[in-house]
């Protein structure tokens, strides 16, 4: 998918664990893992709002558009 989720990078910058983020936003660890690994098909606005609020960032910091070729490389990795 040509949308890359950069949740891991932001978590690293904030020195926050995925488990801590789960507790703060009220999303299960399994669902956040799906989001973090780029396997999610869609993100609800309410989820995005909770993530931006707890991480102190903008939606654009979490989601990046990449071209098809790069997306294929990402999927292969």
């Amino acid at each position, binding site marked *: 998918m040509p949308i890359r989720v950069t949740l891991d990078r932001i978590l690293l910058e904030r020195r926050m664990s995925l488990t801590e983020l789960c507790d703060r936003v009220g*999303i299960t660890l399994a*669902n*956040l893992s*799906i*989001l973090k690994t780029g*396997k*999610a*098909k*869609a*993100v*609800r606005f309410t*989820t995005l709002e909770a993530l931006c609020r707890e991480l102190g960032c903008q939606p654009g910091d979490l989601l990046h558009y990449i071209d098809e070729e790069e997306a294929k490389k990402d999927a292969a990795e």
Partner: protein
Amino acid sequence: MLRTIGRGSLSEALRAVLWIARFVCLLLVALMGVLAATAIFAYATGGASMPGVLIEVLSPAHLVLPGILIAAGGFFVAYFIVDRLTRIFATLAAGDPFVHENAEHLRAIWVAMVAFELARYAVAAGMALLRQIVLETGDAASAGEIKADVWLVEPVIWFAILVIAVLAEVFREGARLRDEQKLTI
């Protein structure tokens, strides 16, 4: 209010009925197999060591045997369809109908129905040919016993086939949407 899907619902009751129907179909297939084998044995041996009643039921073999084989085929198709329906109803009773397997079961059902309809036309054409051959031998009484008028196109069956084909695609789309819903965070 009567629940239609899930535990203790109408689906669960229908599933039990289908399970019984599946068993009955299987029994009928087996019975037709035994009758066919007996008819072949009677034809081959001239019925030397068989009870008179059985010989009477199974003669003339050239007319009875095709009928038994057609019935066996029909019961087998019925078993196949009921078996697939039983599996679909198992998912309904579990409260989770939109799975990819159900789309495949419905597709198998409509393909089986098409195959059976086409086979029915082929058999009817064969019977008409057989009647002509028997007529040419001068045995008008036997020729009269051969039914060849079963190849009328049944609009209801073809309509049902089309409806099931559409439903198969509905289930496929439903399963796709469910998968997408699962991956919506």
